[in-house]
């Protein structure tokens, strides 16, 4: 069985702070990590490998330093790692990202299962999984919190807003997973040595390697553009609400409504 795990390097958003003067994101000293749900995706792959045997490829697209997450995946048990890195990939929206990841998966070759996190903690779109699945023309199972691999097919439990469903899909299939799925293991010392060695099974591919044209990927290949970023709110401007309890309550409800927050719905 061949499994591809999509992993993304993200800033630890718990560390993300905004410069109160400039309103910019302070990136210095912010730790880079594997997107938390992607560790659960990798664990799911390793669990399948332990039980049934599998060849696991970890794939990421990112700047050169994103090799770190590939090394970590290999150190944790992935058999092979691929970093897609190229100036041409920079500034990609989810359309262009899914194009690049999809082309890379096609180049990797035969696969039965693709595992991804449901959502990355930086971009926060949760769009990559379904877009890669559609690019490859395979079924998708999103919001997966439990899964079982059977002969030639997979059954998964998907979390719905008001419950859950159990669903069965044939191979090949793409799953996006939630943290509730499993408890990720840590890299082993032997794994770390392997991933750091010169013969580590790690490759770096550029746009030409996956047959992408500059206009298909990165900023130029994107269908959306960020035109402005800003901090949700500058320093807190405390507003005092005064009066009888009833009046204070009404004022507060009104104030929050003006900020787009409606209580009680």
């Amino acid at each position, binding site marked *: 069985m061949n499994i591809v795990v999509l992993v993304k390097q993200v*800033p630890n*958003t718990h560390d*993300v702070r*905004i410069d109160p003067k400039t309103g910019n*994101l302070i990136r210095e000293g912010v730790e880079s990590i594997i997107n938390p749900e992607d560790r659960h995706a990798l664990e799911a792959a390793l669990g399948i490998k332990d039980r049934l045997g599998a060849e696991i490829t970890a794939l990421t697209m990112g700047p050169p330093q994103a090799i770190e997450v590939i090394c970590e995946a290999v150190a944790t048990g992935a058999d092979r790692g691929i970093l897609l890195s190229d100036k*041409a990939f920079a500034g990609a929206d*989810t*359309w262009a990202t899914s194009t690049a990841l999809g082309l890379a998966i096609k180049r990797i070759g035969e696969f039965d299962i693709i595992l991804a996190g449901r959502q990355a903690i930086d*971009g*926060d*779109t949760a*769009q990559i999984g*379904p877009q890669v*699945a559609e*690019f490859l023309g395979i*079924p998708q199972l*999103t919001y997966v919190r439990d899964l079982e691999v059977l002969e030639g097919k997979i059954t998964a439990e998907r*979390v*719905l*807003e*008001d419950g*859950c*469903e*159990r669903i*069965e*899909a044939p191979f090949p299939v793409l799953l996006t997973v939630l943290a509730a799925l499993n408890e990720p293991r840590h890299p082993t010392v032997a794994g770390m040595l392997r991933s750091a060695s010169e013969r580590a099974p790690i490759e770096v591919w550029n*746009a030409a390697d996956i047959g*992408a*044209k*500059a*206009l298909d990927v990165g900023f130029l290949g994107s*269908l*959306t*553009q*960020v035109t*402005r*970023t*800003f*901090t*949700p*709110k500058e320093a*807190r*401007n*405390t507003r*005092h*609400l005064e009066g009888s*309890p*009833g009046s*204070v*309550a*009404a004022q*507060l*409800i009104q104030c*929050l409504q003006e*900020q787009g*927050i*409606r*209580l*009680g*719905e």
Partner: protein
Amino acid sequence: MAVSIDVDKCNGCGMCSRSCPYLALVIEDKKAKWLEERCTLCGACLESCKFGALTGEMPTREVPDFSDYRDVWVFVEQHDGALHRSAFELIGCARGLADDLGQKVAVAVFGAEVKGQAQDLIRHGADRCIVVEDPGLAYYRTCTYTHVLGEIIRGYKPGILLIAATHLGRDLAPRLARRMGLGLTADCTRLSIDPEEKILLQTRPAFGGNIMATIVSRFSRPQTATVRPGIMKALEPDATRTGEIVVEELDMAECREFTHVLECVLQEKKRADLAAAKIIVAGGRPVCSERGIEVLREFAEAVGAEVACTRVVVEEGFLPVEHQVGQTGQSVRPEVYFACGISGAIQHKAGMDGSRYIVAINKDPDAPIFGVADYAIVGDLFEILPALTRSIKGS
């Protein structure tokens, strides 16, 4: 673009080959050779040849003519024939956008039997309701719904399409966008029309809510966004509103569904964890009594919030430790954090000062919690919270 090499002018100097990041230009037999399959059309080589032997043109990217795409569309989510609450919110939002553009609001609703809902959608602001009924549409299936919505879009050419950012919407929208070649903005909390360009400005939180980004889709139609539920305002239903109801017949045999639903279990909403909560109502020392917890709970229930507390409340045994916020408890970043009878110790603030809005209710006007509050209420929580509960239930 194609790169062409004039072999008469080329002297095999290799400058072009060195300029190419992709090894797509090589020197063979003292002449440059272009390897099309490795070329990404990046254009890096275009200025590299001093002898005029290499020519080529960068493909340009133009904004296509979208003048025949119009109207603001809402995909209406329904479960078992009942409309999801987001539907009316999205129609309310679409109404404002359509009015700014001088266009119409159309809604698409699919299901086994949903035509009966059309009037209600019109009363809430839709001008046109496109209905597709088929037993195969009773239950949401990714590929089936993607196919049907895709066909509808292909036929009607909407300018804007809004889909709720629910689990269903976030499963459907990216699949649809990839199939139809659409830019897609996720989980928007604000939408407006750019007054000059007349395009949709889509604003959304990213980086765990630390950053807001405004995003546009200039290169594809419909401009498609998922919209966070609970943010947009539904219109008051107006029974005098009229609209058109269109029943579309589609060939369902064309859609290929790969998956098979074995079982669907609907359950009462499980208590979400604090990290994911949109609203948190937290209590401090003064809620350490049966009455105190009850007042807190009643208010939390009225606003659909999770209950949290300071360490004191855990130590006093009034709430389990999963509810503790702070340095040794959980870190939370809800949209609104109500700090009720909480002094604002640094260890507590460490877990909640990233909240979008903080409301502090405290008897002591000098309580440090007011230093991080957006809304400060000096008073007794046993009076303020019941008043809030009443106002919300009454409205």
